[in-house]
């Protein structure tokens, strides 16, 4: 064993640790902002930190909108953000049933976000990346004021492999005095058939989810290209509505078959899709004390293309994976379980778009 160390007298506490240990510490930090700040602490940190393997980036808003906004780089950034936010806004529109008049009010903060690729440049050895996207407006989380809910998870390779979505027009706490009424309805609900306009709404939800997901997939293209070691990506958003995931094989497939389709400027083209949908007009969740209105579960799979791993998975597993460990949510888990036990299941097909 080695002789007594002499570094114990140093004032700088980190001088006592070899580079590998300092790196291990920063590898646990994850947060991109803190990592960048730490790189500014001293030269040693500046040289060690770019080697971290796991980074979490909460895409920041820009403070100044005027500063250096004319550079070509910024044009690109803005372009990116636009691609990202537009469908996002669209979906919040649908979920909140807001009036069309407000369509224009999203323009104002398109230009106030940084491009993730710029920020991630110093981190050359990232293996696991977790991106968190800002929401359209601060505080406007997934339609909370309207009690609606929407959660989705999409898996991509070079294109969409699968997407699972759970949505409801409302999800509210069940009040005691309503309980009897609900029980009555419960008896009849099995026979309920989805009305045309309800079905249309579900399809709009689904398409919205898919568009947002494919815009996120587009967003990470450059990142995957520039960070050759990445083998795990998760993209979430501030409202925890949707999650895009890519594992090692999917990223590998993406790298090999990255055919850029120029017909779409800000999202990845979606392949032909097969969809399965479960629907209940009213869904009681006694375990979590909630009631859902218009509860809908959709399982979407790409037809053809890659994603062998997804294809062999049955719906139950796919859904279970999708909502595994979703924070708040015993609610989600219970809703999904109950929806899947309903007998009626709608099957839909969609062309590539």
């Amino acid at each position, binding site marked *: *064993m*080695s*002789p*007594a*160390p002499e570094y114990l007298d140093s*004032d*700088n*506490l*980190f001088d*006592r*640790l070899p580079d590998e*240990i300092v790196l*291990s*510490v*920063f*590898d*646990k*930090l*994850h*947060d*991109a*902002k*803190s990592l*960048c*700040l*730490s*790189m*500014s*602490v*001293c*030269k*040693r*940190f*500046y040289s060690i930190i770019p080697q971290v393997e796991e980074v979490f980036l909460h895409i*920041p808003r*820009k*403070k100044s909108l005027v500063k250096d906004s004319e550079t070509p780089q910024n044009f690109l950034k803005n372009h990116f953000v636009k691609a990202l936010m537009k469908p996002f806004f669209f979906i919040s529109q649908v979920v909140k049933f807001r009036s069309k008049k407000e369509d224009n009010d999203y323009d104002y903060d398109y230009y106030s976000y*940084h491009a993730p690729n*710029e*920020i991630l440049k*110093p981190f050359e050895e990232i293996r696991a990346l977790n991106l968190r996207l800002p929401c359209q407006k601060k505080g406007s989380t997934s339609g909370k004021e309207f009690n609606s809910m929407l959660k989705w998870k999409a898996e991509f390779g070079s294109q969409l492999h699968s997407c699972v979505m759970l949505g409801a027009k409302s999800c509210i706490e069940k009040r005691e005095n309503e309980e009897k009424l609900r029980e009555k309805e419960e008896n009849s609900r099995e026979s309920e058939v989805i009305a045309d306009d309800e079905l249309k709404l579900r399809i709009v939800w689904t398409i919205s989810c898919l568009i947002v997901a494919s815009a996120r997939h587009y967003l990470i293209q450059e990142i995957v290209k520039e960070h050759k070691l990445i083998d795990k990506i998760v993209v979430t958003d501030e409202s925890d509505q949707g999650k895009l995931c890519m594992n090692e094989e999917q990223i590998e497939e993406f790298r090999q078959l990255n055919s850029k389709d120029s017909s779409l400027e800000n999202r990845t083209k979606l392949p032909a899709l097969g969809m399965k949908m479960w629907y209940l007009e009213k869904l009681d969740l006694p375990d979590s004390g909630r009631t859902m209105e218009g509860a809908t579960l959709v399982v979407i799979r790409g037809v053809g293309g890659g994603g062998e791993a997804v294809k062999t998975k049955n719906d139950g597993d796919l859904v279970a994976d999708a909502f595994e460990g979703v924070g708040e949510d015993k609610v989600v888990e219970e809703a999904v379980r109950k929806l899947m036990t309903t007998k009626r299941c709608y099957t839909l097909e969609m062309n590539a778009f």
Partner: protein
Amino acid sequence: MSSSTELTEKKVFLLKSLDGVIFEVEESVAVQLEVIRELIEGDCARPFISLYNVTSEILALVIEYCKHHAETCSGGTSATIADEDLKTFDNEFMNVDENILLELCSAADYLDIKSLFELTCRTLASLIKDRTIIEVRKMFNVENDFSVVEEKAVRKEFAWAFK
């Protein structure tokens, strides 16, 4: 099996710190120090094992940590309760000053105790997170060795992080 035979069966080992203090530990504790595992298994651990890189102050803490983890894991409680218990213990155990924390991290690395190493790294990272540069420098006594020009460049490079 009676408890008395159990007691006699328990092997103990002697660990000697950098400053010459000798600690007596049971096998369940000693095996957690991967670095001496071979010595123990090869029966080369007599009369004591010298740990040149660890002071008695830190070694005492390390032993406390390993002891608690060994006892909790063999205590026969359910996994979830044991987990909770360890979490609480770990949190409290990490409630030490930065100096000790870094020493513990270094010791855990040297003694090859993975869980303690993870724990100290995570704790150090959480101390750094959301702190300003000046706070981090002060907390760990790190000198700013950037020249004025360099610092300006770095600040520009990470302008987004400086708000």
